[in-house]
């Protein structure tokens, strides 16, 4: 349905997932909820004739962040490993707060304190 990915069919693409993984693959198919059928999945910064992580795989649409058409200019692919060494890990999209339970504990204590105070005033 969604025709936006049609131009990428049977081409090498770079994929970023919600968990922050990044790899290249050949796009073999897709549907309207962005479920993808991928072939020859390789690490983003590995050489394109390097080891294959998975030969064919379906990636669920809910895990997809972006799909980019991979068009390395001459010599760029050779630099990939060098760039990869400097690359920071991509965050996930979960927007998780570290030690969130401690924050809520503090909030809980603060509100409990308030209610006891209020009750005293009422008496």
């Amino acid at each position: 349905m969604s025709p936006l990915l049609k131009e990428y069919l049977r081409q090498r693409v770079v994929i970023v997932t919600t968990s922050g993984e990044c790899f290249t693959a050949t796009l073999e198919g897709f549907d309207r909820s962005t479920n993808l059928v991928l072939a020859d999945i390789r690490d983003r910064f590995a050489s394109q004739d390097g080891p294959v992580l998975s030969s064919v795989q379906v990636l669920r649409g809910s895990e997809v962040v972006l799909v980019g058409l991979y068009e390395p200019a001459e010599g760029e692919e050779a630099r990939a490993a060098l760039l990869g060494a400097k690359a920071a890990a991509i965050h996930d999209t979960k927007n998780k707060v570290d030690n969130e339970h401690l924050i809520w504990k503090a909030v809980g204590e603060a509100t409990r304190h308030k209610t006891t105070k209020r009750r005293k005033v009422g008496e």
Partner: protein
Amino acid sequence: MLFFSFFKTLVDQEVVVQLKNDIELKGTLQSVDQFLNLKLDNISCTDQEKYPHLVSVRNIFIRGSTVRYVYLNKNMVDTNLLQDATRREAMSERK
């Protein structure tokens, strides 16, 4: 469908998209669909040093559900028109 129409009016303009994984991408809006999936052309990452993953990628498809913000220029939006359209859509939904 209002925002679908709204984004369609922004096609061919330069926008900055911030994703939920904190990556910011600048590019020309090429197309949108009903899920607000975006297609950007001629992209550049605002923090290329940190995220070189999209070097040698110029054209990308972004899944709408992973977008946090789309930054626009003030002159790209006619707020009065948008408000009118919002009211009209709210009216038509009530019927």
